């Protein structure tokens, strides 16, 4: 019984991770329409109800920058060097398409859930 509960929890965590993965990308891209450095970006997302740990955020930012969706630069603020990120022109285009896709999926899900 105890094992089956643990399995259920693990299964849920894995599925939640899969569900969140794509959403986080959209959220990060959307939030970076305004310039942020890592910590303030995390805080902003957290304040809006989407917590993301540093171990997930920084590799994601790096990957999105490599893909050309973000641009970054190091600048000094409060006597410390910080890396500021913002959405690139290509990132803006991709974000638009992703948002359209997300709205389509969301609308379909709504209909499926109403029917069920």
């Amino acid at each position, binding site marked *: 019984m105890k094992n089956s509960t643990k399995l259920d929890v693990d299964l849920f965590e894995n599925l939640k991770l899969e569900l969140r993965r794509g959403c986080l990308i959209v959220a990060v891209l959307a939030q970076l329409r305004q310039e942020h*450095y*890592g*910590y303030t970006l*995390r805080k902003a997302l957290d304040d809006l109800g989407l917590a993301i*740990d*540093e*171990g*997930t955020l*920084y*590799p994601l930012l*790096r990957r999105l920058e490599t893909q050309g969706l973000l641009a970054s630069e190091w600048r000094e603020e409060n006597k*410390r*060097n*910080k*890396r500021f990120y913002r959405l690139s022109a290509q990132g803006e285009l991709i974000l638009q398409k992703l948002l359209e896709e997300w709205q389509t999926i969301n609308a379909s899900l709504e209909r499926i859930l109403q029917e069920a």
Partner: protein
Amino acid sequence: MELLDRYLQAVRFWLPRKQQDDIIAELGDDLRSQIEERESALGRPMNEDELVTLLKQAGHPLWVAGRYQKQQALIGPVLFPLYSFVLKIVALGYLVPWLVVWIVLTVLVPSHRAADPMLTLAGGWASLCTNIIVIFGSVTLAFAILERVQSAVSALQQWDPRKLPRPKDRVSRVESVFGLVFSIVYIAWWLSLPRYGALIFGSIAGFFSLNPALHAWYLPLLAPPSIVAVQQCVNILRPQWTWLRAAAQLLSDSIALFIFVFLAKFHPYLIPAGTANLDAQHTQALVKLNQAISWSILCVIIGICIAAIVHAYQTVRELRRMSKGSRNGAVMPASQAL
């Protein structure tokens, strides 16, 4: 802050060399910002326990650094099914035959085993383990290279559904007809041996003859090809009985194995014909012929053992498929279950 520096140093160790400074500066700034915010909320510096909790929340250095690595899997999800299939084929096609050959040689050839049975077992086990490690390592290495090269991924994008193999839900009639012709020719050849043996064995027929003890096995040796011939006849009429082919071949293998294990005991297989006195040259030839037959019988036994394992596996698979089909109702035609 000593704990934080130790943490960042530990993360740095596992990072890609070119990105170390960049990542550590960014991660360090994030953690320092978190500490400053907590201290500002607490109105005092964080103590060691609080700092430990914060760093533990950030994750183990190895885990944190791992998130920055490009390639996480040695063999990715696209190639993994193929990798797993190749490993199974290699295990069945090489390791199982190797094991069968080792067992047969150990049991039947005294020079192949040590005086102490435990030493023989230990030697065999060590060789098997070495083989497994070498094969597993080689296949894994080949697929890891393929994964990096990505050539397989592009090959997977160019495919044609029409070139996919047909479902194996029936035995090909053409295959059954050709197999039956071959079986009939073989049986006819075997039956002709007593009458035309001299033609087949040529000049040696006058000097050597078969050990009379072997004569009793002449007709039983017709049983394996006859069983296969009957199966081929039935499969021409009932091609959907796929289980019959595997089962008939398993039965044929079992009978052949039984006969050949008995035959192996009747050394010498060839003896001087009648009352002929052999000269030194013919006596030497007789010894060599008997040795050659002895090794041939050993090879045949090994071959039959391997075939029996394969056919046993196929029989079980067919029977399971049949029982699954009958449980699922419509999948298996009623005629196939009968």
